[in-house]
């Protein structure tokens, strides 16, 4: 760019090309392996020319791992998390930025702390809560003596119970319970000019109307970026769905991959496994390619 450096330019091209090959190779290998028959895929070395069994393998993988309903589950979970995050983070950021009620700073920190500890490190107790989401409230009632009081007065025994194992809410809600997104909105709301708020108030708009008619439309870019990131993040979740979907009907596509690991005995069916892998990795890849701009923007904005 600034000066002529033919030698360095040559190396730049070589290294970037090697990087490109390493980045793309797994995709290519998976696709080729998915097109071979059982014998060819286990050849050493495996032929890099595509075989002819691609659709057959895809079909076998699809039925073995029951991918149709599982992909639908994945989609519902990912869309639910994305939508929930986009809405709830907006609410919270609005509350933190635009109001001056006592305890606001405390709430801010309460939410900020959740960034520190990801779901993975507190899976065991979170699992117990999801098994009965009302258990925290039951315990509080018991400890404060309220349930005793209620039982004495009305004769009704208080036992709150609502299990969310094997349900979409169980999959989605705990994944929404973190602060990512709230800060994205907060940063953005802080850049919205005060004059706009003043003008809205002058015209008689209350908090609710200002939020719905002015703030939300202005946040469209943020919503797209956050939605993209959260969709991908939720789609790629593994440990959480694995734990709480003890029943096959709510399992997601990513957790179903495990069904496709070839058995130790016999000739490993790598072609089927790779076909399944291809199906599972395709939707997020399409989202990344189609939403590239929002993806990059959302990633950089949510993390900082």
């Amino acid at each position: 760019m600034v000066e002529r450096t033919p030698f360095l330019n040559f190396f730049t091209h070589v290294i970037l090309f090697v990087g490109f090959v390493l980045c793309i190779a797994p995709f290519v290998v998976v696709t080729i392996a998915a097109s071979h028959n059982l014998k060819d895929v286990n050849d050493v070395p495996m032929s890099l020319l595509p075989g002819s069994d691609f659709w057959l393998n895809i079909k076998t993988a699809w039925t073995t791992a029951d991918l149709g309903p599982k992909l639908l589950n994945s989609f519902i979970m990912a869309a639910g998390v994305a939508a929930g995050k986009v809405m709830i983070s907006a609410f919270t950021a609005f509350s933190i930025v635009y109001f001056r009620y006592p305890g606001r700073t405390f709430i801010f920190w309460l939410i900020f702390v959740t960034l520190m500890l990801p779901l993975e490190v507190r899976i065991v107790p979170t699992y117990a809560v999801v098994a009965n989401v009302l258990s925290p409230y039951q315990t509080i009632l018991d400890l404060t003596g309220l349930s005793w009081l209620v039982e004495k007065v009305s004769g009704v025994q208080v036992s709150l119970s609502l299990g969310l194992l094997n349900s979409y809410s169980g999959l989605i809600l705990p994944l929404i319970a973190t602060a990512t997104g709230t800060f994205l909105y907060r940063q953005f709301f802080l850049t919205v000019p005060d004059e706009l708020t003043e003008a809205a108030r002058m015209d008689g708009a209350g908090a609710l109307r200002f939020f719905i008619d002015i703030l939300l439309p202005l946040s469209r870019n943020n919503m797209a970026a956050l939605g993209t990131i959260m969709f991908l993040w939720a789609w790629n979740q593994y440990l959480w769905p694995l734990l709480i979907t003890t029943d096959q009907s709510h399992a997601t596509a990513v957790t179903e991959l495990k069904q496709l690991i070839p058995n130790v005995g016999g000739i490993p069916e790598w072609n089927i496994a790779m076909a399944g892998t291809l199906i599972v990795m395709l939707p997020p890849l399409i989202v990344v390619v189609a939403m590239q701009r929002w993806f990059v923007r959302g990633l950089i904005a949510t993390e900082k």
Partner: protein
Amino acid sequence: MEKRVTFSSWTIGILFAVPQLLLIFTFFYWPAGQAVYWSLTLQQPWGGGNIWVGLDNFRSILSNADYWNSITASLVFAGISTGLAMFIALVLAALTDRQLAGSRFYRVVLIWPYGIAAPALAMAFRFILAPEAGFMAVVNQVWPGFWDPGLDGADAMASIIIAFSWKYVGYNFIFFLAAFQAIPRSLIEAAAMDGSGVMRRFRDIQFPLITPTIFFLLVINITESFQDSFGIVDIMTSGGPANATNLMVYKIYSDGFKGLDYSGAAAQSIILMLLIIVLTIFQFRFIERRVHYR
């Protein structure tokens, strides 16, 4: 920064915060508190009350060789994969930022790996690195017994490091490239006018200016290596062979849900939480000093 113009209705303001607060109370603070409670008591998985045991759970875990093995494996994994993923991404981003022909193309493709679910890419690498089929089989034909992640712990560790690094090169690339592009072009041109070459400019201008990003990515990569590794380990090695890849989150999962040792798993969770918090503080405290902030 604060808003000058706000709304006066407290009720509406608090109501807007309620959904989030309910969620984080139910799914974050309560479980976190429960983890602390469980780690200090001994609970029967099938009910029957808890017995207060103080720090006994921690003592029994910390005197367990398997647990120390798991910590060592996690640290080795975190160190090598973070170093690898960050170094490769830094080189690729620096070269892409030179904006030669084709750099737009690389900018698009090199971020793809980050979109892939860890278990899916683990499956791909399980095949690519399989000793009997795939590509390492070729190497094994030349040197029989050279590579077998199913038997050799070091090979298994290398496999999960390769899979994890591949994904996070894409992630780090996005941030490094953004950081390089944020450096004003005029700064680089001025340095070029003063007669500095490409390497010199990288060392004295670009590198110091992206240190905040390096610092930030270091923290993220290490914490992600604790969490996002679960899917990779579960699909590729299941913690084996002989616990060589039994990373901390995987061990919490297998002790808690397969072994039904809730108290032990809770104590391990607490230790992992502390480790992540300490790492974050350590990095803020000691690395931040050498970081050039704009």
